[in-house]
């Protein structure tokens, strides 16, 4: 189970098994989407599976996640999604109304992102499997001309930008499962971040070094991946990280760290210092980017690690998730 949670175990699976056997001798760092060239024309491709319980939750549903998630993977790789294909694995006995609701949700999400669904497949598995339904989407698009992201271009002094508050999605899902006696006014933040990425790229393109959407495993996992890929240290300021009160409260009650909680509508960007203010302005002035802020910077030390400091001078290392975020009571 730990292998699917997005943290160290997932990374080991990809780096240790999938990449060597499937990707040949590519030495490129692993990104959210792959760049390929077909007859000289650059393209970006990605695929993602969506497994979520419950299927519907405040702020969205699995269908929306499936569309937005793939669009976002392409966006943070610097590409505009053009077309998608989808596969459904459905559990026998799933009410058709549930399926229809998800298809409608996907249709709205596609319309909002300006992307077409051009094909797909459906399979049915026996009752008891698939938690209702699993959805996989694959997307293809064109790289945006003004963006080129690569972890290897990150330098000490670069600033780390975050598009908005973290933890909303993961906590919403946790509460929606109903196992906990917790109630809060929270919604998933699922949305397509392409408009924000485009605004960022148009204003500050040459300064954008790297981007990622911090989904499973949260901000901590994405930034740890960056730290290892560029061999530098990512230093965040605790007080600058935007977290809604309700997310903070839920995390405190459950003993969870907001930095490890999944997000479905946010992205991180590393920007060259001379472009940082322009970049932040571009986001703040785009609908949906008002809460964007600079949360830290890149330094030489501590190499390959993420450090969070407080205003009064205390600091701690924040690691990648080892398995699922485990609540602690002790």
């Amino acid at each position, binding site marked *: 189970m730990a292998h699917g949670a997005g943290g160290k175990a997932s990374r080991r699976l990809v780096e240790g098994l999938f990449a060597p056997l499937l990707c040949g001798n590519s030495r490129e760092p692993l990104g959210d989407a792959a760049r390929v060239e077909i007859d000289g024309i650059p393209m970006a491709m990605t695929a993602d599976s969506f497994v979520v319980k419950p299927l519907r939750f405040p702020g969205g549903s699995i269908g929306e996640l499936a569309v937005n998630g793939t669009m976002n993977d392409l966006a943070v790789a610097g590409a505009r999604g053009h077309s998608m294909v989808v596969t459904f694995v459905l559990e026998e006995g799933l009410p058709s109304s549930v399926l229809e609701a998800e298809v409608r949700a996907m249709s709205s999400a596609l319309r909002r992102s300006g992307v077409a669904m051009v094909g797909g497949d459906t399979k049915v598995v026996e009752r008891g499997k698939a938690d209702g339904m699993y959805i996989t989407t694959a997307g293809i698009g064109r790289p945006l001309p003004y963006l080129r992201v690569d972890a290897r271009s990150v330098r000490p002094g670069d600033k780390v930008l975050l598009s908005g508050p973290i933890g909303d999605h993961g906590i919403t899902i946790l509460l929606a499962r109903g196992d906990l006696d917790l109630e809060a006014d929270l919604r998933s933040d699922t949305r397509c971040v392409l408009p924000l990425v485009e605004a960022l790229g148009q204003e500050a393109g040459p300064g954008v070094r790297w981007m990622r959407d911090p989904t499973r495993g949260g901000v901590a996992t994405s930034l740890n991946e960056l730290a290892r890929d560029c061999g530098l240290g990512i230093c965040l300021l605790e007080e600058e990280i935007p977290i809604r009160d309700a997310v903070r409260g839920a995390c405190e009650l459950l003993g969870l760290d907001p930095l490890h909680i999944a997000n479905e509508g946010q992205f991180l960007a590393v920007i060259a210092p001379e472009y940082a203010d322009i970049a932040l302005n571009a986001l703040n002035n785009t609908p949906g980017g008002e809460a964007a802020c600079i949360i830290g910077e890149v330094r030489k030390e501590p190499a390959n*690690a993420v450090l969070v400091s407080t*205003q*009064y001078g*205390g*600091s*701690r290392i924040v690691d990648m998730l080892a398995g699922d975020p485990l609540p602690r009571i*002790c």
Partner: protein
Amino acid sequence: MRYVDEFRDPELITKAAEEIRRLAEPERHYRIMEVCGGHTHAIYRFGLKDILPDNIELIHGPGCPVCVLPMGRIDDGLDIARKNDVIFAAFGDMMRVPGAHGSPFEHKARGTDVRIVYSPADALQIARRNPDRHVIFFAIGFETTAPSTALTLMRAKREDIHNFSVFCNHVTIVPAIRAILDSPDMRLDGFIGPGHVSTVIGCRPYEWIARAEGKPVVTSGFEPLDLLQSIVMLLRQLRAGEAKVENQYKRVVPWEGNRAALKAMAEVFELRPHFEWRGLGFISQSALRIRKEYAEWDSEQRFDVLETRVADPKAAQCGEVLKGVLKPAQCKLFGKECTPEHPIGALMVSSEGSCAAYYNYEYRKTASLVTEISSVA
């Protein structure tokens, strides 16, 4: 007042740190032990060591209930669940703690019904909702958590719920502190006393430390300002040559403790003659078991218990780190064979164990990480 943010005020923290610097005599080296694992965790999480002067050394005590739980008890609990198709419910902290045959999560992957709960009441609720399955609540914790387990058992009895039992591993804090003080290698100047345990047992149980051992004790809260203020209070006592128990966490800790909680514990539990603590060995009168009036709800009475005993690998120096004799990094296995991802000793498994806290929050601040892509397990 939110009772949290106020105690994290950066200006006040800086002030408190300055006061500590002022009070700490430069030629003196202070060794202060924080007993409670929650304090260890807070110290690392808030990076407090960064702002303390070098001549104040914080030594981590054994107050981590997951850390001191002998591995065999996990095996015993999981064994009952596996053999009898029982639902095994425990706090998240337990899920990755390895027994001799794997952790609860690993057992879950192999088919045992293991569930995370956030309260003993959740476990009882699972029992209510699944009348044809038995639920075992694997109870851990010091006196902070024992009353909640006790109340839950009382409710189970009152409501006649018979598909529920508790596998009790509750331990008491004072014998652990005694074991530390009895240890010949230990030299300590004072204690940051347990915060939340004290809401139940009060401050009186620590008076012998001040009186008989001549060491000051300050029961402390968990926010940065609480811990810093407690250190200020300890330094003031040490400067004045005093040794008494003071209550820094007054807003929450009543000097006399919580009578209702103590009553509930007394109704349901009694002291075991002795109990084996991981790293500290057998300590008498240090752990709780369920009274015979509640035998029906005692997993150890309802089921056969294997009584597995598992020794820690010889190279693991958990006992010495637990007692504060060694620092985590001084254990030969630290950071090499023993890491949070593949923990060998319990101090690396629990997030408030000193080894895990040190590894997760501090260790790599200075060392450069060697990126390892190890093969898939």
